[in-house]
């Protein structure tokens, strides 16, 4: 294949994203401001010494909703209220990029299906409590071969029925791979539907769930237009992909099941991760194309320090994650690698990915100063301002920590200011101080 003259997908998407090709700007000034911010984000990931420290939000959840105020429950059902709260929050806080309510999903999407992987405010939890995900064993230890043999069949007839009682009737369908002989297998398929009225109800439940999603996507689009086109703030959270190990652990086997598998059936686990890898890579690439967004976000879960030994990380976690990152970068895409938990001992691995392609998020448990030492000249780092500090400490304490971060980690570029985790409880004056320190540093050094 001749790539010489070919522009990579990522390069085209970066140019479009920086230009704001997907937005209608309120005026020329708004356009220029947006483009300057977007370019600053890209340049910082590319490790250019811009003399500035961009400020980005990992995600503002309750912190944003409190600008309404809107409860979590309302935010998942009454999108106009949440829209107003998010706009107000971003008007009041001078971030260089935004992350919207992408994780404050529509309650109807899950409720229509009685989805059991989530606990919802107003249903299982108090109205103003954050939704939470349940990690359980949805795939049995003996089902590895079944999955490897025909993943779509396992997902349709085993996984979905376990995730939703409304989808249990799907288990009655025949394997679709049998739709070949005797009138292409049609009699078996339609008979299963006719004999199980629940199949039709399952389709209706899917339709109801989908209608919530239609409404929600329309609202996310409005937010992008308002925050991007009017307030000139680029949207940082775009397409996503997952580390294969985390898929098995978070979605299929649960953490306990995964650990047992690491000791009892390591070869099956590895085979499954290798199977998942190309699909995740393609999922990230397709998402980037569909959204016109050059930064693929990869949230990391189970690879943190202490959750496994370095030897286990190198055997089970890193190989497929590395291939995923390299595959995305090969397409010219950038990757927002969102580490969660303490990550000190794993940071050096990101040097194996071409320099200036990853934005590495750090939670407060990770030593940001060590990260700067390890990754300087290799990857951009961001985050680390403790959510606990923002929630409970004084403005002076926040300022002292952020100044240190700006001076040490900001030196020479390759750093963005951000809090440690999704922001719920936090004092506004503390968040504003964090932002102000980053901007002040930019001015003083440029």
């Amino acid at each position: 294949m001749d790539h010489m003259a070919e522009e990579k997908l990522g390069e085209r998407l970066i140019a479009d994203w920086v230009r704001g090709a997907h937005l209608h700007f309120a005026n020329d000034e708004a356009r220029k401001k947006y483009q300057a911010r977007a370019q600053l984000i890209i340049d910082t990931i590319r490790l250019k010494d811009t003399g500035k420290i961009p400020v980005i939000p990992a995600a503002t959840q309750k912190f944003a909703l409190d600008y309404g105020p809107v409860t979590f429950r309302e935010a998942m059902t009454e999108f106009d209220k949440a829209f107003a709260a998010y706009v107000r929050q971003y008007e009041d806080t001078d971030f260089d990029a935004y992350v919207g309510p992408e994780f404050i999903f529509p309650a109807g999407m899950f409720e229509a299906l009685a989805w059991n992987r989530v606990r919802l405010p107003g249903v299982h939890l108090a109205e103003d409590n954050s939704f939470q995900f349940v990690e359980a064993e949805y795939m049995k230890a003996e089902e590895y071969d079944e999955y490897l043999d025909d993943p779509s069949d396992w997902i349709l007839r085993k996984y979905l029925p376990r995730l939703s009682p409304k989808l249990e009737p799907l288990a009655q369908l025949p394997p679709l791979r049998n739709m070949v002989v005797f009138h292409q297998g049609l009699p078996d398929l339609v008979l299963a539907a006719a004999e199980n009225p629940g199949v039709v109800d399952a389709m209706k439940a899917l339709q109801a769930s989908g209608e919530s999603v239609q409404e929600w996507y329309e609202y996310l689009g409005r937010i992008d237009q308002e925050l991007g086109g009017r307030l000139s703030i680029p949207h940082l959270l775009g397409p996503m992909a997952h580390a294969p190990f985390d898929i098995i652990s978070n979605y299929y086997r649960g953490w306990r099941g995964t650990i047992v598998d690491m000791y009892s059936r390591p070869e099956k686990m590895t085979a499954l991760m290798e199977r998942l890898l190309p699909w995740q890579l393609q999922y990230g690439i397709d998402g980037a194309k569909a959204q016109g967004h050059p930064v693929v976000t990869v949230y990391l879960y189970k690879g943190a320090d202490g959750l496994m030994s370095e030897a286990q990380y190198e055997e089970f976690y890193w190989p497929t994650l590395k291939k995923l990152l390299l595959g995305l970068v090969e397409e010219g895409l950038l990757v927002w690698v969102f580490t969660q938990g303490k990550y000190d001992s794993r940071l050096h691995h990101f040097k194996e990915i071409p320099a200036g392609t990853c934005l590495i998020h750090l939670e407060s448990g990770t030593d940001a100063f060590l990260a700067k030492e390890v990754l300087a000249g290799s990857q951009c780092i961001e985050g680390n301002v403790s959510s606990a500090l923002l929630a409970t400490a004084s403005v002076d304490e926040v300022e002292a920590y952020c100044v240190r971060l700006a001076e040490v980690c900001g030196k020479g570029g390759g750093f963005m200011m951000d809090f440690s985790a999704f922001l719920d409880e936090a004092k506004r004056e503390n968040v504003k101080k964090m932002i102000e320190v980053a901007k002040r540093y930019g001015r003083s050094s440029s």
Partner: protein
Amino acid sequence: MPQGLTDAIVGMRMDEAMTIAKRMLDNGTDPLAIIADGSKAMEVIGRHFAEGEAFLPELIMGGEIMKSISEEVMPGGAGGAPEGSRGAVVIGTVHGDIHDIGKDIVALMLGIEGYAVHDLGIDVPVEDFVAAVKEHDADIVALSGLLTLAFDAMRSTVDGIAAAGLRDNVKIMVGGAPVDESVRAYTGADGWGNDVGRAVKLAAEWTDGGA
């Protein structure tokens, strides 16, 4: 072959451990003695963990092997009531939060360390903590949470224990990934931790006057 059982568990060899346990049972070994051998293995794993030579997977896998052995040699029996000589611990994830991995690990580790651990589970209301402290005459209360929203729930739990007149009877620790000294101060707890080792160390300081 008690040594064989301990070695198999420490070596994370589930099938071998089960085979040995079954053979011991067939040969007339007291089920309690088999479980005691398993507990020795868990102590070794706990020590390796404390020394940084073992990680969470070893702790969890060791616990899984022990669970399977208990079910095999004492079906439906003795699993529940914990024994412990170093003190009674009431542990749970505070109300509004359903995360359990960190809490489970701390509970497991404190059990290995010789505490009687009473695990109240997740999303635990204040009154359940208060009732458990009374019921078990607890020495230590361990409040877990992963969300920043848990800070208020931790504080109200500490307040609830105080309002019940029990605050002077117990030492309270708060723990979870986002927890630090500022959270400890905010909640009014006596100590904090964001990893298992710190929880164990704190408990030892409180019950034995040192690790």
